[in-house]
């Protein structure tokens, strides 16, 4: 075959493979949802995974939230000062965090902290035949291993995002009010007047739930689908972080377009 044709053929093959993989991933995701009974009936299994996905991600989430908020406070003050409206600093910090940075950055951190760990763990369980052993013991690994991790991720993500935002607002408060000396009253009151519960906070929570579903599902699928070798698991772990980061950002755009369209 001549070279340009081969290129086109390669493109076609890769496209077909990608589509097939998305199909397999979708079926895996549906199977996880359908076999989630155990994750709720024996909630202890899910609690254990919340510890690994949620509690162990706390430190990175809280520290990053604080710093992001402090930077927002500094940068926001510099910009707002030009227009003489420093009192809007609270609004700026709160809106950026609650609408965008909270859900998105928390989800990115969650993908690299918890998502990669989930992929590596499931991949290794597969490589060392632990999943096959479970199947041979008449225990469904999707119900016993995958589903509890999935729900743990979905439940942890909005809590982590809320903690990130709260911590960030505190950071903005520290820099803006305590350090620079913006009026404390207008910092909070303007924030309260402008941040809407449904429009901003609830939408932010919805975003973080969607991101939680996406990141955890990707991490679980990559682990379950990883070739049972050291190289396969390490590549799957990398892919989890890359794919979920891209998916988070793309989903964020779509969700933002739907949620905040025509408002403001």
């Amino acid at each position: 075959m001549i070279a340009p044709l081969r290129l086109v053929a390669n493109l076609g093959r890769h496209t077909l493979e990608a589509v097939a993989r998305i199909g397999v991933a979708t079926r895996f995701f549906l199977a996880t949802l359908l076999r989630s009974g155990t994750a709720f009936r024996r909630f202890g299994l899910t609690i254990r995974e919340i510890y690994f996905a949620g509690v162990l991600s706390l430190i990175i989430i809280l520290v990053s939230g604080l710093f992001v908020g402090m930077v927002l406070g500094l940068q926001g003050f510099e910009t707002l000062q030009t227009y003489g409206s420093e009192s809007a600093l609270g609004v700026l910090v709160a809106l950026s965090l609650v609408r965008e940075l909270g859900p998105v950055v928390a989800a990115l951190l969650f993908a690299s902290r918890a998502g990669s760990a989930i992929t590596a763990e499931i991949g290794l369980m597969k490589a060392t035949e632990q999943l096959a052993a479970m199947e041979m013991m008449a225990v469904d690994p999707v119900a016993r291993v995958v589903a509890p991790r999935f729900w743990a991720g979905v439940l942890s993500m909005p809590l982590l995002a809320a903690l990130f935002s709260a911590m960030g607002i505190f950071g903005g408060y520290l820099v803006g009010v305590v350090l620079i000396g913006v009026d404390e009253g207008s910092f909070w009151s303007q924030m309260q007047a402008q941040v809407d519960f449904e429009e901003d906070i609830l939408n932010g929570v919805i975003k973080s739930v969607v991101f939680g579903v996406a990141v955890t599902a990707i991490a679980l699928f990559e682990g379950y689908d990883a070739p049972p070798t050291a190289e396969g698991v390490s590549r799957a772990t990398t892919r989890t972080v890359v794919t979920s980061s891209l998916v988070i950002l793309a989903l964020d755009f779509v969700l933002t377009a739907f949620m905040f369209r025509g408002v403001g």
Partner: protein
Amino acid sequence: MDNLVEIKNVTFGYGERPILKGINLAARRGQVVAIMGSSGCGKTTLLRLIGGQIKPDSGSVQVAGQNVSELDTDGLYELRRKMGMLFQFGALFTDMSVFDNIAFQMREHTQLPEEIIRDLVLMKLHAVGLRGAADLMPSELSGGMARRVALARSIALEPMLVMYDEPFAGLDPISLGVIGNLIRRLTDTLGLTSIVVTHDVQESLKIVDYVYFVSEGVIEAEGTAEEMRASGLPFVHQFVHGEPDGPVPFHYPARAYAEDLRLAL
């Protein structure tokens, strides 16, 4: 004595590549049956067929009178509760202690109170001589100990059939003897049927009742351990005595050597 496992005329292949080409095999109740053959000849595939993890392309696999490939998921899981399997490297759950590994199936499949589970687990561990290691994590065990824990786990629910995938691989001579003895002893005392897949001829010939030699997807020879040792078949002779060349060639099929090296003829 009747057969617990019967494999009739089974063929199987991954994609285009045939692995098994018409295998007939049976395991009698209460016996230790070995399936031997060189690496990659489809031995492990046979175990996965018996466990119902894969379905044969043709032929039938029967366990306790049930056709495995015709069972639905529930029926298959029901059957698997009566099977134990020892995986090649133990496949212990690395996030649980030795105790929890063995208690795993009891907790999943029975409503037994925790005190009884505790007693049962310690009994199983005692049978493999590792009662003292109950609180260790799998990462703290040596290869031989891990294999023994996995063995205890595979008999946790008193199965009727236990399958062993390369139980001797990568063990030192002492552990090798320990595992071999355990397989024989547990089979006799618990009334199990054991199917051992291995390429370790010397160790397994000591403990087995019946042997199948598999090569290139077909049964080359079968018989009792004694018959195999005395066998005049070239393949069996090569295998039992570990000769480098013979019916199983040293060289992977290739073009003529001289041609490959591009020597002028």
